[in-house]
């Protein structure tokens, strides 16, 4: 085990996989940085410091700085993967998915199905998600609701450095296309990471981040942190919460959710996406359908409102879920009679 930041867990895992498998290539905007400038290559190493040192180690053939062309990045990742490579593409901000949705949704996601199972497209698309930096409406969004809705795509949302490592290695070695959503607010968080070079976390297995008998909280990404803080606060008052970190939203560990709700009878879903047609509604529907008899109270959803992400600090705070909002939702489900 070694203590490291989430961003370093991501950087180190890609680096190790590039050492292990020469088919792994990295592409994206400024993943090298400095090309065509006085500073020269490696001036940046990725704006999230997730590809620092890659260019010097692996060279321009395998560490590909692209122009600002998200459709070309996404499409090239698809073409590289169809041709037998294992691309790890970075879309600098997940919000830019709007520019390149076709190449993900109509192309990468559907190749295998459309082609009758005769293609393999092991592309990993890394996309930093989330608000909290006052980056406003086009650099702050959660996009899990779009990509989880895409048949053919697997969706990963790691919360801890260790999960970032184990899930990313699984994503790179996985033969299906994977969208890997890294929360910008988690990059600087530290934690213990398993250093086994083959450490992988299989998809579709949620992590029980906190255990309790009274209420089930389901969350992913940064929202797990809020849920954990809320659960720790509530524990002071003798309220026990199961906090289920989904880890992957596609595939979804339905069993972990349903098993917990059967015990607690109360569910709070925390989601950073707007409230309509989202993971929050999806999981609420799942529980309403498959664990209806277990429910003792209406399901609570903690989500932003149906608005774009606002800029000003006060507005962004009002927009986002928070530990206090999660705790309030937990108390509300417990007060229901």
């Amino acid at each position, binding site marked *: 085990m070694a203590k490291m930041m989430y961003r370093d867990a991501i950087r180190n895992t890609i680096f190790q996989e590039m050492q292990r498998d020469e088919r792994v290539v990295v592409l994206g905007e400024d993943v090298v940085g400095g090309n065509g400038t006085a500073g020269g290559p490696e001036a940046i190493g990725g704006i999230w410091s997730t590809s620092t040192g890659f260019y010097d180690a692996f060279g321009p053939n395998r560490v*590909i700085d692209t122009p600002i*062309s998200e459709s*070309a990045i996404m499409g090239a990742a698809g073409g590289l993967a*169809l041709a*037998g490579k294992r691309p790890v593409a970075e879309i600098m901000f997940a919000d830019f998915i709007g520019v390149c949705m076709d190449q993900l949704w109509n192309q990468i996601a559907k190749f295998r199905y459309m082609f009758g199972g005769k293609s393999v497209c092991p592309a990993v698309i890394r996309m930093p998600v989330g608000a909290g930096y006052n980056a406003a409406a086009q650099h702050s969004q959660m996009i899990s609701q779009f990509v989880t809705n895409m048949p053919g795509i697997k969706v990963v949302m790691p919360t801890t450095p260790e999960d970032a490592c184990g899930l990313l290695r699984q994503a790179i070695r996985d033969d*299906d296309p994977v969208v890997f959503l890294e929360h910008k607010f988690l990059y600087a968080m530290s934690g213990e990471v398993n250093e086994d070079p083959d450490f992988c976390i299989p998809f579709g297995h949620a992590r029980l981040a906190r255990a309790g008998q009274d209420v089930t909280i389901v969350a992913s990404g940064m929202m797990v942190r809020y849920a954990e803080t809320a659960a720790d606060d509530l524990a002071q008052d003798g309220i026990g919460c199961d906090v289920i970190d989904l880890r992957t939203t596609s595939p979804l560990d339905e069993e972990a959710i349903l098993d917990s709700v059967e015990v607690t009878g109360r569910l709070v879903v925390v989601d950073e996406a707007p409230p309509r047609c989202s993971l929050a509604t999806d999981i609420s529907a799942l529980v309403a359908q498959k664990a209806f008899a277990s429910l003792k109270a209406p399901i609570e959803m903690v989500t932003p409102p149906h608005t774009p992400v606002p800029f000003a600090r006060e507005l962004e705070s009002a927009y986002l879920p928070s530990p206090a909002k999660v705790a309030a939702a937990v108390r509300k489900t417990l007060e229901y009679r």
Partner: protein
Amino acid sequence: MQLNREALTRAYRQMKLIREFEERLHEEIQTGEIAGFTHLYCGQEAVAVGVCEHLTERDKIVSTHRGHGHCLAKGCDLDGMMKEIWGSQDGLCNGKGGSMHIADIDKGMLGANGIVGAGAPIAVGAAISNKIDGPDENGKLAVSIAFSGDGACNQGTTFEAMNLAVVTQAPAIFVFENNHYSEHTGVDYAVGTTRDIASRAEAFGMKVWRGDGTDFFAVYDTFREVLEYVRTPGNGPAAVEFDTERFFGHFEGDPQRYRGDGELDRLRAERDCLKIFRASVTGAKLLEDVDLDTIDTESLKAIEDAVQASRAAPRPQPENVLENVYISY
């Protein structure tokens, strides 16, 4: 012209197979037996064959919604394609793709595509893969080709792909087939004032060629130069624009009210790549009419057999809808 008798025969056979494949589909679609949208390549055969006759299985192509010609020319199985268009479980894609999504990765055919302009970025990705793999024992790179029409030349994806290919010096070739119609809109309207697609590619910093897409030999000879250039490490991508003709509508069922009086008859009489090929090779006494007539007969028979096989082929079952979304889930 340096092709021997065998190569000439093969080229004509490929073009004729595509022609008869499309002519037969045009007939069968009227009966209602074939479902969905079909876009016929009829009239453009010299481009697909003139390009693909140079390629090996290491080379990759990405095609368009009008993809049957590219698929056949790149070596996709004729019966498998016909069965796919019929929606059979035995089709090349098990009835999951249909006309617009035929692919055969093992043959280097990375898919027709229902989205206009979507193919070029995918082809560039494959070309970057070719570059990573490096040259073969003869010092030549495998190439990846994006077939695009004059419609796709207006998509931003095509521009992004051309620029990325230049930036990465990837061995990609952009083959623009200008058939003068972007769906139902003329190239005079949709491609700026110049109508010149190759110049757009040139502006990205790549070498470009132009050729008459109704003349197989013009395509073949031009593309040999393009290929020689792009196969050479360090040269990067290139583009070529072929002027060609589309004999049917944008899609089957298109009333084609945008055509001029007598236009289709004139195209069939004066701009038919198969007639031009026949006149050229018989005039030069390279092949006799009887040789070509034999191929015509054989092609019709091959298509008839494929249609009969497609009618008899097993249909997909409802449970098949769940297959092949993921490799594991």
